[in-house]
């Protein structure tokens, strides 16, 4: 009895050791490329080519200075920040308004309106890019911030309405009713009583939309042509075309492009993970 228990225990130990080994190996595969990317950003070309595994001889910022002064990188970064913030703000605003109407009031067609929004979740908007392009062109919105932001808002609204409706429905009726008895206007009830309670849902919706918008490449590729309007992922392709052989500068560009979202992710990893996997975990 004790012998088998003992064997079971050491078997368990061996198995856990094997599992830790596999996880450790996987962690290296996931992290090491990023580590090399960051280290290479401090290196000269010659260093990268001759000693790819070594740490940089000195942590020189020469590459970063070139990215700063010789490219439009800062402009691309600012464009990405502006477009992402504007799109996420509008998604939150529009979908919270719509979700509030669906969740807190009874009206004819309410089920139909919700269905309409939900069916939008199944539409891959990329495949409608040709009519979308023609549509935006006729509105004079091709090659403008506004056109791109509108497309992202359209893409984000369905799932945001879905999440917000679900959340707003769970808020207790009593709060709303007693404020109404006190004569508060419908707008005041929404603005000062109900919406402050919806903050956790706002965070999820914001992250769920901000990450794909920040990272998107397809829509800027089609809709933006002026260099001054390009987003960061799109700008990277310009940048790589210009510095093909200058690997130090290339790694620096990639590192700097990855930096903002990586920093945010390390601080808010829990919210990022639940925001992005949200739709798939039920």
């Amino acid at each position, binding site marked *: 009895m004790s012998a088998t228990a003992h064997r079971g225990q050491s078997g368990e130990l061996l198995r*856990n050791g094997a*599992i*830790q080994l*596999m*996880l450790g190996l*996987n*962690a290296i*595969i*996931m992290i090491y*490329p*990023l580590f*090399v990317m960051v280290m290479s950003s401090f290196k000269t070309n010659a260093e990268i*080519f001759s000693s*790819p*595994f070594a740490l940089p001889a000195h942590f020189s910022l020469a590459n970063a200075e070139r990215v700063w002064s010789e490219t439009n990188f800062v402009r691309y970064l600012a464009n990405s920040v502006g477009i992402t913030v504007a799109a996420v703000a509008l998604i939150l*605003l*529009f979908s919270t*308004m*719509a979700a509030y*109407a669906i969740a807190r*009031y*009874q*009206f004819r067609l309410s089920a139909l309106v919700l269905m309409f*929004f939900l069916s*939008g979740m199944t*539409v*891959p908007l*990329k*495949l*409608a890019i*040709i*009519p979308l392009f*023609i*549509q935006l*062109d006729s509105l004079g919105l091709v090659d403008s911030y506004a056109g791109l932001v*509108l*497309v992202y808002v*359209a893409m984000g609204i369905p799932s945001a309405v879905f999440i917000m409706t679900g959340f707003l429905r769970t808020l207790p*009726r009593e709060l709303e009713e007693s404020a*109404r008895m006190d004569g508060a206007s*419908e707008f005041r009830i929404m603005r000062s009583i109900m919406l402050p309670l919806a903050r956790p849902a706002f965070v999820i919706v914001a992250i769920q939309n901000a*990450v794909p918008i920040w*990272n998107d*490449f*397809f829509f800027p590729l*089609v809709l933006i042509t002026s260099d001054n309007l390009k987003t960061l*992922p799109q700008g*990277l*392709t310009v940048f790589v075309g210009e510095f093909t052989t200058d*690997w130090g500068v290339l*790694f620096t560009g*990639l590192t700097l492009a*990855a930096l903002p*979202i990586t920093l945010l*992710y390390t601080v808010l990893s829990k919210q990022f*993970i639940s925001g*992005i*996997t949200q739709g*798939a*975990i039920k």
Partner: protein
Amino acid sequence: MNNGRRHTKKAFPWRRSLWIASLLAPALVVMVLLVLWPLLSAFRLAFYEFNGLQPTGFIGFENFRKVLFEQPYSGWTYNALKHNIIAFVALMVFENGTAFLLAYALLKALPGHRIHQVIVFLPVVLSAVIVGFLWKLFLHPLFGLVNQTLALVGIGAIPWLGNEHTALGSVLFANVWHWLGFPTLVLLAGMQRVSKEVIEAARLDGAGDYVLMTKIIWPLIAPSVTIVTILTFIGSFNWFEIPYVMAGLTGSPGGATDVLGLYFYRTAFGSTTTGIQDFGQGSALAVMMFIIVAGVTAIALRYLRRREIEL
């Protein structure tokens, strides 16, 4: 929800309706203008001949006939479609297979499992453009990290992205590295919902890891497997960014990495190398991709849901 009508309705019915309508209006207008209308138009435009941005005339199924049956278009279509199918199968086996093993390992909650979840998910939050360029540099035949590492153990330089036999695999590898964390954490969440008692009971009955994994966990996480399979399918058929960045708009070398997304983009918006730009044929391709994705997803959902119940 059904606790009677609100007194606001009785007092000011028109004011209440106006208030509700104005809450709904912005979202509805955006959806109608930028989702519903373009989507309906996408189907209509596939039946038109184009001159630049302008549809010039109704031509029936001509666009479909060209991309499906007329060389060289049909050759490009089937070549790309083949690679989408290969991508789906490869990602199911390598990405989701690895993810399943990782999820099972993480389920044990050994020391370090939380930090591992954060690490494996890190590439998921990065842009495909960053990931694509990073691996393009690493796969460089002479100076890339991969061949430099292989050189340490005496393996000669392999032109990963330059050789038509290794190019698609290399691009797929970068994609697996990029997305691995997603199915891992979705499957892990599924496994964590399997009740502790069920696992304990199986253990007491003498079930080892293999039996536990195949006979208990696997059937009980069927809903997670369903969703991962469908998302992988949709992802494989909309695949665009990583191949674009790593292999270029024409899916080099010689179309070895061409996929429907690239081919569609080339057809619709033209490319300096092929020179064609045709919104009609582009729309026909988009409609076919839409039908493939929506159709297969619907059928797969039915089949996989039934399987969930049977298991």
